[in-house]
């Protein structure tokens, strides 16, 4: 699975505290919601990235080991996502979605988070089209199917559901709140 990031930071060969100092600088230049890949060889950097994200309010997505290199994925905090009210009215809660996912019939789940967020854990079978790519890629979806749109907190999926509705999709549901509270099965790099 390929993970795309908006920015790649090379912190290889650097000792503590340089990986987080460099990450701090690099993330300042990103837009809210964008993803950075930090490449490091400092073995303590995994714990530090998690702790740093926790104390700065950014989102730690996960780490992939590639030989000696640790690739950490972080997403810049977005205040709008945390506070925004949802506008799309046809919503489904996580329990209802879980019943459907665990049920006999196959259902269609559209995950509109960034590919790196999706890579580190998504509902089995969910299709990933990041919100920013939906405008160009909505034709990949089947208009006649019931589509369950999900993101992390319900904010991006709300925008995606509105967009799909504008494009003539009639059976769209926004799943709330989203993957941040999902307790069912997931697949992906853990």
């Amino acid at each position, binding site marked *: 699975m390929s993970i795309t990031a908006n920015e790649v930071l090379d912190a290889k060969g650097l*000792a503590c505290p340089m990986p*987080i*100092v460099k990450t*701090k600088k690099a993330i300042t230049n990103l837009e809210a919601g964008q993803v950075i890949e930090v490449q490091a060889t400092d073995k303590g950097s995994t714990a530090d990235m998690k702790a*740093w994200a926790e*104390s700065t*309010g950014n989102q730690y997505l996960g780490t992939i080991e590639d030989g000696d290199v640790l690739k950490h994925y972080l997403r810049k905090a977005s205040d709008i996502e945390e506070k925004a009210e949802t506008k799309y009215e046809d919503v489904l809660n996580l329990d209802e979605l879980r019943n459907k996912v665990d049920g006999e019939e196959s259902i269609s789940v559209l995950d509109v988070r960034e590919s790196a967020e999706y890579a580190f854990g998504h509902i089995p079978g969910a299709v990933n089209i990041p919100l920013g790519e939906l405008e160009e890629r909505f034709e990949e979806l089947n208009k006649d199917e019931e589509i369950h749109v999900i993101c992390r907190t319900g904010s991006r999926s709300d925008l995606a559901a509105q967009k799909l509705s504008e494009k003539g999709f009639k059976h769209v549901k926004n799943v709330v709140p989203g993957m941040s509270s999902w307790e069912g099965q997931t697949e992906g790099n853990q």
Partner: protein
Amino acid sequence: MVNTKVAIIAANGGLFDAYKVFNIASAAAASDAEVGIFFTFEGLNLIHKEAHKNLPLPEGKEHFQEGFTKANVPSIEELVEIAQEMDVKLIACQMTMDVMSLEKDAFVEGIEVGGAATFIEYAKDADISLTF
């Protein structure tokens, strides 16, 4: 860590002491905390223009020099710059400077000079206080 305040006293002047102080300070600053360091007595070496470029290792521990190079640990000069870029406040102790006959221009650019009360005023509402 926004709205978190860290107050550090640096009272020793060896290379190990310098790393303890500047690593913690820059990690805290990178985590959005407000950080101030009060340099007193031998701690003044850590920001002295010349001395901070060549701080001594503890006696008998000179062999660790190799380890620092191998681990690619940044130099203290670099860490001081990084700390300043991230707005870490560096306060030199006036009384120690007087005792040692040092003027402000003996130190790296951008430091403040103050007495014990200056530090106490800064540290009175700190969330984390550390002494090295």
